[in-house]
């Protein structure tokens, strides 16, 4: 993988980690070590959406490099 792709990965990881960090900090501020279902929901939804988007790239209608 070339360096631009790797940088894209790092950038995306950083953005997602920042969001998670805020969620975890909020939970810790309330003295919790577990996330609530409401806090889990966007994490799982984002994950499934990202995977679905990537899957769609490999369908017959997806982009071809």
């Amino acid at each position: 993988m070339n360096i631009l792709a790797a940088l894209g990965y790092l950038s995306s990881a950083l953005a997602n980690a920042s969001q998670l960090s805020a969620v975890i900090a909020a939970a810790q501020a309330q003295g919790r070590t577990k996330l609530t279902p409401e806090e889990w929901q966007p994490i799982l939804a984002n994950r499934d959406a990202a995977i679905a988007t990537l899957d769609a790239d490999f369908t017959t209608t997806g982009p071809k490099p």
Partner: protein
Amino acid sequence: MIIWWKQHGTKVLGSLLGLFGLIETLSPGDITSFLTSLFGDRGPGIAVSVLGWLTFIRGFINQRNLRALVSGGTAAPSGEAWKTGDVVTRDPALPPTPPAQKGFTRLTMLALLAPLAFLVGCAWLGLQSVKSLDEGLAEANVQVTAAAQATHQAYTTHQITESAAQSVDTILHQAIPLLDAARAAEQAGDTAGAQRNLVLVQSLLAGLQTYLTPKGGTTP
């Protein structure tokens, strides 16, 4: 106060490092969380670096005192400037000063401190768990999201080939059931099972990270 610090500074710094190491060993994560709450995310690293550096500096100064003792002189009061090979004798007309720490005492202390400092360093570098299982699972899910988003972006902008993108997609599809199983196990009270699945996912993601590392700017 300054004289007291010169005499006891190494003991204070060493004791703090030792205390950190002991607490971190007995109760992993506590001291890291405490330092993080005081100084932010970089707190543990900053605290350990400052304590370790100051202890090292004081030990280094002591080495010069020790060399002077071995070569037949007397130990200089702490903080006095020394040059290599100096033999210093004290002017008897001067008023008495508090005794400086003897060299071997500090060397022994440093030898005792080394493994404790090592423990603290290992803890800070992540050789112990600072996150709850739930937070670890959330983090792994977020890493999967980031990998999928970045791969999609790289593929659609023609930075990687279809086979490379599909390889990443395959790995992510292996990780997701493990993550879901881990979360289900955790909710069912099976912490050990959840931890096992999480470790598997982390192995997959670590392999993916290696794959994503640039290799001279070439496209696989």
